[in-house]
């Protein structure tokens, strides 16, 4: 199934199949010839800018845009009032001032009644240059009546708290999902409560309860969000160049939102400068650029600046979690219960596909074998930007993996057990797969202990513990942190997963041209993952066509089949499978053509890479290139066989795939200053078959840096007045090459049993798994001070305060 070994090389030196090879896309990027949205300049194009609210919660008394409109070079100023006056012929509301979110809530395109978070869109200026557009923003006079904001999620449901969503007639700040629920439970509440109560009563058992916050962070791709929209009034064609991870889904949403005919909408997603989930939702800015071209009849570009990106587009996490874990004193885990307060911001804009509105959070039971688990998530509105599912989170498996890996370490500390031993004692065993988790997930495959042993060997775990003991004796504080995570990636199946009713199956199209060269058309959208390389390798693996002879096309809805896009690590599990399936369809067709040419029955042929040949007579055969030409020739084909070697497929995955891994982090902490230095980081991932190991490792490296960032520095906090304290890269700190160590990677390969090539998807594994390893390492270093937990980010101040027994509350301004 994996066949990574003995892959033949093409004339260009590339593996005809799986193996590391240079990326096709690099040729343009290293020359500065990438084509990002801000590189798109259309004739007559106008620029635009959005006026944003300086207040977190305020009533709009009046907006006077006359001075802005009078500024030379300004073409139009649009306010919410104007949008209210534009009727929208669609089922999703009757005017343009509001739009649906991906979680069946509504969100203001431009505020009409109130602003509900700092940075919310208030007015839209279209002008001849971006400089003039920004100048005009300063000339718009908005009178606000400032209202008390709800900034502390823990107070959002208090009696008397200001009501944020009065537009919906709400009487409190609770969020009601599409099923009518205000809390989201999963697992077995009764059995879990009983197990925990029994453990509390049993002197041979312990129960550890810990409050653990996963603070608000932001994906912050290097390229901000933006779009260039052009409605050709003669043809009615809307063309949109836009930063989207899901071009087809966006096309359908624009059809629904704008009431435009879907066949007239073309979404082009050129090169994308990183996404990480930030470019999944439909933002007011995108919609405004469409309105802008409708109003002006000209192409309109909208590009966020960095502040706008950080304060208004999809944040991630913001989960206040309380976890209880019950275990025997020998370290056998019995049950885990997690209670979550989920801060969704002012609009419920979570982009997640399951019936369970907390996404995949209920996979929190993790990699361990125990019968009882339960979680309850209570979502609330606050006066903060909307979002929640983003930043390589696998629909909230980041939060799930973090809470279980953190609380397992708390348990180890309570039991005075080595955290590695505790994990080894509880990891799922290979014979338990496929494994049905206590919250209903069917893990497909895994050899967890083997992977953990590989990680411990690379780390030299026992030696590290010896070194730690020696250092402690000298008053030096090093820490070793372990994280073992299980991911679930590759949404759907379509029966279980959809976004706004769009089931999560991916289309694909393969055309093999008469000369044997091929084009593969994808629905998924690379933001740096290297699809143009890896998808060619999948087809090469199936058909024997050299990867350099396969052109991979994506990012243009007019030229690719429908699919839900790239996020949740779903490209390889879903579209990768589709590529394999469609290539196999071509291979089957090729067999019939070859049989006709060789005057035998298809069943008389055997396959070897790139070629069908007559069983028992290897010399008599036809290569794919020969068959391609034959398929276009006058060769008579059997009845019902259409000719040509093109095929399409739609892949509906039978289950998620379950990549997993074991990470070990080694830190040195200076207790005098609270500074943390990451000395080593070992990451052993099992993502099944590796199509291009070089790219897989690159994906892991990037996610590990995310983990370092979140664990040590990244944070969007707010003060009580509602000011966003992470609105620039001076304040929202991202890790640099200096904080990141020289990653040490290892691998095990447990192929997914249900994926055509056994691959599992790896784009988010490291982001999911690494934060807990870093935090566990820091807390391990601090354990001689009696520290059991401190929330991310573990800034020097926070670490020092934790040592003093007074860790900082991270989601609010430091006091």
């Amino acid at each position, binding site marked *: 199934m994996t066949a990574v070994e003995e892959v033949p090389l093409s004339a260009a030196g590339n593996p005809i199949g799986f193996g590391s090879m240079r990326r096709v896309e690099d040729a343009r990027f290293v020359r500065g010839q990438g084509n990002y949205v801000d590189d798109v300049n259309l004739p007559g194009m106008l620029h635009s800018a959005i006026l944003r609210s300086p207040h977190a919660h305020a009533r709009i008394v009046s907006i006077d845009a006359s001075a802005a409109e009078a500024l030379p070079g300004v073409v139009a100023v649009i306010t919410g009032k104007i949008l209210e006056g534009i009727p929208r012929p669609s089922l999703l509301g009757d005017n343009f001032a509001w739009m649906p979110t991906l979680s069946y809530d509504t969100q203001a395109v431009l505020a009409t009644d109130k602003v509900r978070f700092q940075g919310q869109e208030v007015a839209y200026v279209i002008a001849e240059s971006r400089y003039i557009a920004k100048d005009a923003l300063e000339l718009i006079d908005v009178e606000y009546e400032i209202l008390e904001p709800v900034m502390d999620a823990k107070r959002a449901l208090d009696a008397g708290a200001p009501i944020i969503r009065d537009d919906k007639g709400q009487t409190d700040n609770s969020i009601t999902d599409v099923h009518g629920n205000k809390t989201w439970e999963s697992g077995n509440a009764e059995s879990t409560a009983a197990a925990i109560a029994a453990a509390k009563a049993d002197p041979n058992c312990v129960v550890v309860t810990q409050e653990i916050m996963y603070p608000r962070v932001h994906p912050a791709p290097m390229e901000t969000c933006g779009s260039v929209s052009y409605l050709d009034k003669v043809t009615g064609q809307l063309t949109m160049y836009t930063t989207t991870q899901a071009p087809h889904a966006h096309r359908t949403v624009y059809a629904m939102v704008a009431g435009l005919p879907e066949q007239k909408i073309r979404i082009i997603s050129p090169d994308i400068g990183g996404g990480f989930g930030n470019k999944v939702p439909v933002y007011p800015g995108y919609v405004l650029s469409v309105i802008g071209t409708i109003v002006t009849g000209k192409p309109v570009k909208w590009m966020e600046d960095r502040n706008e990106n950080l304060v208004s587009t999809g944040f991630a996490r913001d989960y206040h979690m309380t976890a209880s874990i019950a275990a025997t004193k020998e370290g056998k885990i019995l049950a885990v219960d997690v209670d979550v307060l989920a801060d969704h911001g002012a609009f419920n804009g979570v982009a997640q596909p399951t019936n369970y509105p907390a996404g995949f959070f209920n996979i929190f039971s993790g990699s361990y074998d125990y019968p009882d688990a339960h979680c309850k998530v209570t979502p609330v509105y606050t006066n903060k930007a909307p979002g929640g599912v983003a930043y390589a989170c696998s629909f909230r498996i980041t939060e799930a993996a973090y809470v279980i890996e953190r609380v397992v370490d708390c348990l180890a500390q309570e039991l005075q057990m080595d955290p590695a031993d505790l994990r080894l004692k509880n990891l799922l065993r290979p014979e338990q797969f496929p494994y049905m988790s206590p919250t209903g997930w069917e893990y497909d495959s895994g050899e967890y202990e083997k992977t953990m042993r590989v990680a411990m060997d690379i780390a030299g775990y026992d030696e590290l513990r010896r070194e730690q003991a020696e250092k402690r004796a000298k008053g030096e504080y090093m820490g070793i942190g372990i994280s073992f995570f299980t991911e679930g990636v590759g949404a759907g199946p379509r029966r279980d997963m959809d976004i706004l009713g769009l089931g999560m199956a991916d289309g694909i199209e393969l055309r093999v041209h008469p000369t044997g060269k091929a084009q593969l058309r994808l629905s998924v959208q690379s933001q740096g993952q290297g699809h143009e390389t890896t998808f060619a390798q999948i087809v090469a693996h199936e058909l024997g066509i050299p990867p350099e002879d396969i052109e991979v096309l994506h990012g243009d809805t007019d030229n690719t089949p429908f699919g839900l896009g790239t996020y949740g690590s779903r490209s390889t599990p879903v579209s990768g499978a589709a590529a394999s399936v469609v290539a196999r369809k071509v291979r089957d067709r090729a067999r019939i053509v070859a049989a006709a040419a060789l005057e035998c029955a298809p069943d008389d042929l055997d396959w070897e890479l790139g070629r069908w040949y007559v069983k028992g007579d290897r010399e008599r055969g036809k290569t794919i290139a020969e068959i391609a030409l034959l398929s276009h020739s006058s060769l008579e084909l059997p009845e019902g066989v259409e000719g040509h070697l093109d095929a399409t497929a739609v892949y509906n995955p039978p289950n998620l795939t379950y990549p997993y891994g074991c990470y070990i982090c080694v830190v040195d902490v200076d207790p005098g200053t609270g500074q943390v230095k990451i000395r080593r980081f070992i990451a052993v991932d099992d993502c099944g078959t590796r199509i291009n190991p070089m790219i897989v490792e690159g994906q892991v490296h990037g996610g590990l840096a995310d983990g370092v960032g979140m664990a040590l520095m990244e944070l969007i906090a707010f003060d009580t007045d509602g000011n966003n304290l992470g609105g620039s890269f001076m304040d929202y700190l991202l890790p640099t*090459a200096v904080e990141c160590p020289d990653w040490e990677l290892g691998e095990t390969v447990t192929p997914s049993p249900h994926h055509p090539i056994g691959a599992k998807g790896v784009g988010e594994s490291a982001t999911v798994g690494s934060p807990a390893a870093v935090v566990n390492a820091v807390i391990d270093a601090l354990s001689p001070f009696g520290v059991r937990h401190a929330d991310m980010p573990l800034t020097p101040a926070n670490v020092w305060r934790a040592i003093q027994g007074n860790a900082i509350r991270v989601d609010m301004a430091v006091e």
Partner: protein
Amino acid sequence: MEVTITINGTPVTSEIEPRTLLVHFVRENAGLRGTHWGCDTSNCGTCVLWVDGSPVKSCTMLAAQADGHEVTTVEGLEQGGVLDPIQQGFIECHGLQCGFCTPGMMMTGRWLLDNNPNPSEAEIRDCISGQICRCTGYKNIVASIQWAAEHPATSEVTA
């Protein structure tokens, strides 16, 4: 005001507002879109190019300041159809994913090697510490610059 900036050896003359940022001039007036911008506050380094041979963050410099000076951008790295070793290194070592930070990283990397042909890993990490990459975790960027150090350029990058 009228400015003339020599970009990759070619003088570009334009009438501009004095407030025009250098990154904007290079992208819009000279049409060289390989230089990106990412943060507005000189923290991310996607806009790094050379002015008179030294890397600067071009979002934090006015085009007017570069009037009469020489600017080198990513488009100036390739000479005579041959990639600069720094470009080749990024390809060989998978030093890029989305490609957005890459031009700035390469401009800094090549400058480092011009001044320090055999930098240590720590020196490389320090040199790119004012530049953010969200994709690679930096390991392969470091390796790419090391690759370039091991395969020295045969031609000089000149403005």
